[in-house]
């Protein structure tokens, strides 16, 4: 096993996310980073994970080209179940089957609450985002929720403007008090600079692990509050060469995620 000497922050985030996944688990997979992260795990150390997407798909094998979102047409030719949202969000997710839910986010706050609805006041927003899709359901119902996003200060307010996807709400036992099932909720937030977990009593997010070449100062700079740091602070292992090769050569040779070619505009039709 040889560590890679040449990898990006995005690749480190994806590898860190995939390391949270164990073989045989059932994964509720949201759009964007979670897609490539779950596929990396399935292609390497966790070939027997079951991956499902909100719209009604359970994935049997990895498509020839990477899906750009969870409703991508290529999903239809690699599914073992392809039906509707009550099959997946209902009889799998609501029924309590997934071990992990992987989600993207625009904003995450101190207690792991996610906002993908709007910035500013909901009734008159400054910036309107897409909305929940199935994210609220993943975050409400899954046992371990892992959120993945780029480490940028504007993404980490102390309190989100709108709780699209409930984390630990106001901390302590407020999540359970809201009526959400016990033993559900955020397990980790994984960014391009580190891995964050939640205090088991206060439910506040703290820095658990940062990446090689990074620093605590750099991590802390990316938060709008003074984020706590674990007493057992760890430094992650770099990705192995094998994982980087699978990512670049097998999963995403066109750089749709790794180089963000998804949204490249074209000028003429």
């Amino acid at each position, binding site marked *: 096993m040889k560590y890679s000497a040449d990898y990006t922050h995005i690749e480190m985030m994806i590898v860190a996310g995939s390391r949270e996944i164990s073989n045989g688990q059932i994964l509720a997979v949201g759009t964007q980073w979670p897609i490539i992260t779950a596929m990396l795990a399935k292609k390497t150390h966790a070939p027997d994970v079951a991956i499902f997407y909100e719209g009604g798909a359970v994935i049997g094998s990895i498509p020839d080209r990477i899906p750009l979102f969870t409703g991508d047409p290529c999903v239809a030719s690699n599914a073992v179940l392809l039906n509707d949202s009550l099959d997946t969000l209902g009889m799998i997710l609501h029924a309590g089957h997934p071990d992990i839910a992987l989600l993207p986010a625009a904003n995450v706050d101190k207690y792991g609450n996610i906002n993908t609805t*709007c910035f500013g006041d909901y009734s008159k927003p400054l910036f309107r985002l897409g909305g929940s899709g199935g994210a609220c359901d993943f975050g409400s119902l899954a046992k371990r929720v892992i959120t993945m996003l780029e480490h940028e200060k504007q993404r980490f307010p102390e309190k989100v403007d709108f709780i699209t996807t409930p984390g630990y709400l106001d901390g302590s036992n407020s999540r359970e008090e809201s*009526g959400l099932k016990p033993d559900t909720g955020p397990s980790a937030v994984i960014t391009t600079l580190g891995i964050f977990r939640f205090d088991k009593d206060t439910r506040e997010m703290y820095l658990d692990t940062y990446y090689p070449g990074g620093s605590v100062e750099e991590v802390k700079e990316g938060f709008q509050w003074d984020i706590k740091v674990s007493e057992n602070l760890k430094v992650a292992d770099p990705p192995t060469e094998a994982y980087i090769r699978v990512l670049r050569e097998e999963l995403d040779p066109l750089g749709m995620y790794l180089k963000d070619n998804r949204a490249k505009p074209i000028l003429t039709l």
Partner: protein
Amino acid sequence: MKSKIMTMREAIRAFVNDGDVVYLGGFLQHEPYAAVHEIIRQEKRRLTVTKSAGMIALDQMIGAGCIDKVISTYIWNPLPKPAHALRRCVEKEIPHKIQMEDYSFLSLTLAYFAGALDLPFVATKTLLGSDFTKHSSFLGENKLKIVESPFNGEKVCLIAPLKHDVGIIQVQRVDKEGNAQAWGLMGDSKYGINSCSKVIICAEEIVDTEVIIKDPSRTIIPGFKVNAVVEEPFGAHPSYVSGYYDMDWRYFSFYDKATETLDGFEDYLKEWVHGVKDRSEYMKKIGKKTLEDLKPGPWSGSPVDYGYCGRFQEDYVS
């Protein structure tokens, strides 16, 4: 029986009225873009439109001024990029103020399910704790309620049913009676389309009832609930229809760029919606080369055999 087969223009004129509550089916595939363009051309107004994944179909209707109220879980260009007309509308009230009701995908599917079965409500454990329980828009008290379960006292969220005056979806095939068959990623479509008083089925092709009868498990709504049948090949472009055409990624990129400004959006409508008289003219503009590119490769399974059980055992009736 009066034929239900009609043109898109006739179907929209006959069954979509100003002020209606309209369900648009499709979840990333099966999106009824041809119908959406005809609604814009006929300048329908004051609609309440519900659609799980709003995508750019709702963006176009909002920008064109057809919609006063919208119910959705997600409105975005799938690239993923903002839906520009939606943002102009919500942030700057262009072309006019709309009211928007947000749901999560599961809760919206359950609301359709309740509507389709005419249930008084469904109970769920999703949404609890989220701000969806604190902020509602035009549905007010009629959206959801948090109560204690009468069985074990735990908190549950009750979702009210959603019903629609008219529903529209683009599916793979339909017969002249309206028995509609769809397959692939289905999202909320089966529940949504069954929660509508009037139904317009747009299909890639109209087939003989014999075809439907030989594979009836694929029918999502029986013909007796359907009012209009429209044959509209490529009616879901730029979304996709499994087995018929792939998603047109380039078109979503083009739409993103083209509609970034208000002028650009209006030019888009002028050229691609008002500038064509129907879907076949639109497809001519898309061009043969793109259509060829979007043709999927084969991915057919072994055909299923439902078996023929047309007689009793001999000694059963003697």
